[in-house]
């Protein structure tokens, strides 16, 4: 069986049994009245990690972040920061800083004064404050805007001021609540890379909350997928995408086809599934433990499926249908294939060539096929 080892990164303290987590949520539960925002959650984050909490709104990710910042107290459980329980420490004594979703820039202060605010609270001597502020302004390329007030800045500039203000104190951990949520698409993409560079440069631990999966995938070392106050999976972006742990994760991140079926055979070479639509699926990916007779789901990403007008040679991992829908996106084309049993399968193909001779079109008969390492078996 193949493993996913090749797509792991070199920075991976979570695989090192000797590494000590920097932030630990231990059985954290947070209730607001009879609503449970975070439910008995346990999670470890390592030093210098760029960690993303990804989930739909209301999944408890922001509550988790606010508990780390000290604005909310957990109903039960404890939070350790560098081995120390920080549950009772008020926000103004925690060595973490937060970048707010609304940026929360002080409207009555200049950019300079905003950045210097935290340093002044620490009683840092004036020349040092000035030097640090200048350094921060340079870091976010806002030297020319030092004397401006927040309302005289563009959205992107405000975001930079908020960032500079939150890293000015050199916190151990920087918390970012939807840091790019208010920016337009183009700026967001640029800023993603800038944030990653900044994190590398300053060597900080970043915990970012986002609902934008692309953002999380681009920036994070590891992602925690959250749903209804619980963590569904914690893994690197590639693992989340290629080896989702459950149907929820597979469906939440990117686009997926789920084939329901029953395990027919399982041995050292792989798993064979009898799909409910009559297709035989063979996979050699080591996935969830599944014994023969057990109902399972086979998850496969659209780009892993090939559409062709010719019948594939294999008798497995293939099904016949007709082209139901075509969406031309420029860089790629999405085909919806309606199988003869009525199920719709999403596939996509990169448009490597500009012009394709006798391309598939609506209502054409077509075969879908995929290799044995293209998908994963899910039991949940």
């Amino acid at each position, binding site marked *: 069986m193949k493993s996913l080892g090749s797509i792991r990164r070199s920075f991976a303290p979570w695989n090192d049994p000797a590494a000590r987590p920097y932030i630990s949520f231990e059985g954290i539960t947070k209730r607001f009245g009879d609503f449970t925002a975070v439910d008995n959650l346990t999670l470890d984050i390592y030093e210098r990690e760029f960690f993303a909490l990804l989930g739909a709104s209301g999944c408890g990710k922001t509550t988790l972040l606010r508990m780390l910042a000290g604005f909310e107290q957990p109903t039960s459980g404890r939070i350790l920061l560098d081995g120390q329980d920080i549950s009772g420490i008020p926000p*103004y004594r925690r060595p973490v800083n937060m970048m707010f979703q609304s940026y929360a820039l002080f409207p009555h202060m200049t950019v300079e004064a905003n950045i210097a605010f935290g340093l002044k609270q620490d009683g840092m001597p004036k020349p040092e404050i000035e030097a640090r502020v200048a350094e921060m302004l340079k870091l976010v390329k806002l030297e020319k805007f030092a004397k401006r007030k927040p309302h005289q800045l563009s959205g992107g500039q405000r975001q930079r001021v908020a960032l500079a203000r939150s890293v000015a104190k050199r916190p151990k951990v920087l918390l970012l609540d939807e840091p790019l949520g208010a920016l337009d698409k183009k700026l967001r993409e640029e800023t993603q890379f800038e944030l990653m560079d900044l994190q590398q440069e300053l060597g900080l631990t970043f915990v970012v909350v986002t609902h934008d999966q692309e953002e999380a995938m681009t920036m994070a070392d590891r992602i925690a997928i959250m749903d209804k106050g619980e963590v569904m999976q914690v893994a690197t972006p590639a693992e989340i995408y290629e080896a989702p742990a459950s149907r929820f994760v597979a469906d939440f991140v990117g686009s997926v086809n789920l084939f329901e079926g029953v395990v027919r055979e399982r041995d050292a070479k792989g798993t064979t599934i009898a799909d409910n639509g009559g297709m035989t699926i063979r996979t050699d990916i080591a996935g969830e433990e599944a014994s023969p007779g057990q109902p399972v789901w086979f998850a496969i990403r659209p780009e892993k499926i090939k559409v062709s007008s010719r019948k594939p040679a294999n008798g497995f991992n293939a099904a016949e249908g007709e082209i139901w829908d075509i969406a031309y996106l420029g860089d790629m084309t999405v085909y919806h294939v309606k199988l003869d049993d009525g199920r719709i399968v999403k596939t996509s193909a990169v448009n490597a060539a500009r012009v394709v001779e006798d391309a598939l079109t609506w209502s054409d008969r077509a075969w879908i096929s995929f290799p044995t390492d293209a998908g994963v078996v899910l039991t949940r």
Partner: protein
Amino acid sequence: MAEAVERGSEMTAQAGDSLANRVVSALTSRLVIVAPYLWLLFFFLVPFLIVFKISLSQTAIAMPPYTPVFSLTDGMSALLSGLSELSFENYLWLVDDPLYFNAYVSSLIIAAVSTLLTLLVGYPLAYGMARAPASLRPMLLMLVILPFWTSFLIRVYAWIGILKPEGLLNQFLLFLGVIDQPLLIMNTNTAIYIGIVYSYLPFMVLPLYATLEKMDYSLIEAAQDLGCTPSGAFWKITVPLSMPGVVAGCLLVFIPAVGEFVIPDLLGGSQTLMIGKTLWNEFFANRDWPVSSAVAVILLLILVVPIMFFQRAQARAQEQGR
């Protein structure tokens, strides 16, 4: 063909309609702009000019008790000779008699002290309201406005019942044993302060509440996140950001308090010197309309000029980007 004609006439009807609509909407928008100016013209500027004219006249035992009285039917020459009779004598009189100067100063001091007291009482109140659960706020707002439903005069009279030596307050304190002699609050400046703070509190609380309520609470969290204690965040963030409300509230209390007549008359003693009382005495006791008009004009200048300067300074600060 007929259809085409029909459609054509429909189109012109539509065009005519839209033109009429446009004219009406242009007129309405004009009217909306002009209406407040007309209001100010007829109910502020014209009465003020009349008062100003009276302040330049002489007293006379007549009805009305001053000369000259212009009449538009007497012709141009009468009007001109009347104009030549006007003089600033009454204003000189105000400077000569220290009574007026003292009354102005004393009014300003009393108004300033009571404005400060109102702010001290009103700020925590407004802050508490703004931080109360959103569902409670309309009710709290209602409670602040509720006293307006009773006549101002009656409410001030009620304070006599509370503050007088055998009044409710003294009885209560004697009953508690906090004091063994009734406090003499009635007919002192303290009674005036209490009266003004009580009466004008809503004017302070409402603008303060409006600014505090719309303040983004994440600013406080951001300040705390950056190492500021809750009280530090209050002074460094909340207070500066609520300044527009503080200024508006203070002006709304200070301006009417300077000219206040009812409260000093009912609650203050005979030795209380306030310009409102002086004005009343000149007008009704002495029947000296010209001098009382001069008093009123000067009072207006005392209030308007500094406020204009203040507003200009604020506008400039805003331009520089606050």
